[in-house]
């Protein structure tokens, strides 16, 4: 698909510039201009929440900088982790003296760079903890759940940790909560059409028109199967089945649900998918605590969708409902 851009090598920087111009609540930090932070002065004493990741997934990652969510976010190139320098900048900016939680997706580059940055921050007396989003059930078996990729479900961890930090909880508590949100969140997605990384001649992967690549990652990592598309309800069924297949410790009958567009799939169709998923959840005795349907974690113009479920307990439910605001999402 034709991309609305100038030159490919400026894709990220020009887009970030537009983002900050459109949303004065966001500003640049650091000399690489690859860290987005809250514009308003930071709360001394609040635990910081830093994140980071590759570009091309807006609103994720840096779009979630805002009250009750992230303090700062490092931005990599399209589908590449942030550099160690910007990871460090994001940590330093987030920190208000009470330590900073690095809350990122479980991708090699992102993890390694935040690890190195956290070590450097430690040298400057900043306490850090790290929690990795690992919600994509398609990316590894239950026995290897810690190795899973982090995808749309990271949003629940952002929200819960962000609310806890805003409420004045300490670093250990915020870390525990983020980890709990991760542990209780599962995502599965499917792609219907690929995306084109800027500057490339061909899409990063292909999806035969009319077929579904089920379990595909948000960068086009291969999925579990591909077959002809049948119906939204069939997909909803397989997705919910797979999300429910694993037990969650202290699993409750309340779930937060995110039906997410990977980019090109329109709201109209997300609601059709949501309708199918919602019926199944109700049939199985689940009640919804938070419902989100929209483009929250995308892959540019990739078509397809993901469903994330967070099996909430009372603590998470309260944190998910707490007021928060960023350019792409508001709760209150």
């Amino acid at each position, binding site marked *: 698909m034709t991309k609305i851009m100038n030159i490919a090598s400026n894709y990220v920087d020009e887009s970030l510039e537009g983002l900050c111009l459109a949303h004065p609540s966001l500003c640049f930090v650091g000399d690489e201009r690859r860290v987005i932070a809250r514009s308003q002065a930071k709360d001394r004493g609040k635990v910081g929440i830093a994140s980071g990741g590759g570009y091309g997934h807006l609103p994720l990652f840096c779009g979630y900088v805002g009250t009750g969510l992230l303090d700062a976010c490092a931005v990599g190139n399209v*589908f590449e982790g942030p550099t*160690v320098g910007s990871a460090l900048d994001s940590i330093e900016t987030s920190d208000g003296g009470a330590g900073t939680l690095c809350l990122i997706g479980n991708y090699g*580059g992102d993890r390694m*760079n935040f690890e190195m940055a956290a070590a450097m921050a430690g040298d400057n007396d900043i306490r850090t903890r790290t929690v990795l989003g690992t919600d994509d059930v398609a990316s590894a078996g239950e026995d*290897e759940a810690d190795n899973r990729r982090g995808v749309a479900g990271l949003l629940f961890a952002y929200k819960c940790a962000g609310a806890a930090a805003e409420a004045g909880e300490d670093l250990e508590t915020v870390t525990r909560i983020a980890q709990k949100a991760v542990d209780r969140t599962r995502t599965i997605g499917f792609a219907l059409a690929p995306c084109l990384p800027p500057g490339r001649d061909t899409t990063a992967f292909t999806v035969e028109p009319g077929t579904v690549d089920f379990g595909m*990652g948000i960068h086009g*990592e291969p999925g579990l199967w591909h077959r002809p598309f049948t119906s939204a309800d069939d997909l909803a069924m397989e997705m919910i089945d797979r999300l429910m297949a694993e037990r969650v410790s202290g699993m409750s009958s309340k779930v937060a649900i995110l039906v997410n567009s990977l980019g090109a799939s329109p709201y109209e169709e997300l609601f059709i998918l949501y309708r199918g998923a919602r019926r199944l959840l109700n049939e199985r005795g689940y009640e919804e605590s938070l419902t989100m349907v929209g483009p929250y974690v995308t892959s540019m113009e990739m078509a397809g969708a993901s469903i994330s479920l967070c099996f909430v307990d009372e603590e998470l439910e309260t944190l998910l409902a707490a007021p928060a605001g960023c350019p792409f999402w508001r709760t209150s």
Partner: protein
Amino acid sequence: MAVTPQTIKAALDHIAGDTAYIENRLNEADARLGDGDTGTMLARMIGVMTQVDVDPAETVGAYLGRLAKASARSTGSSFGTLIIAALMAVSRATANADRIEASETASMFSIARKEMTSRGKTELGAKTVIDSLARIEAATDGVVSTQEAITRIGQAADAALDAFRDKPCRVGRARIFGDVSIGNDDPGMLAVKLIIGTMFDDDAATDRAVTSNMPR
């Protein structure tokens, strides 16, 4: 002839002439198992590295350190980060050296491999760049001439690919897709072959003709 900042720079310039080909091959390999960007990232990194001029007075370590720092501003991808970390480690080990002798080849690869292993939290045998480095390390143990080192590096990079092609990936994006990864080269391992192999090898064109005819 030993390895000096000048020879490294010359080798980088040499590969820079071939990046379009390398970029496509590696993207293609990564598209089957990962997100299809290994080549683009590497081409960009090589471009950045060739911008770093050699200071005639500096040690190998100083030059490698500057290469690592420049690269570190260009990417945060897995492979890129591993390369940067390895460069830093070798840079520290050669901080005072004007040159790396052929006989030190194996120990340099060992330093790189160990750094990647601890950063990447990946064991030998997982079908990653680390396996290629380990093979090269073993193959270059005891070499004394640069020419011999170059030959053995090339052979070991090939041998590593052959040895792992039909094994499943056990790390990174392709981890659970045993079936998908079998028969496909790991992009990081392939990069070692194409980069390190091409770096010192004027016969790269021949090699290219061969690989581009390989069944897909």
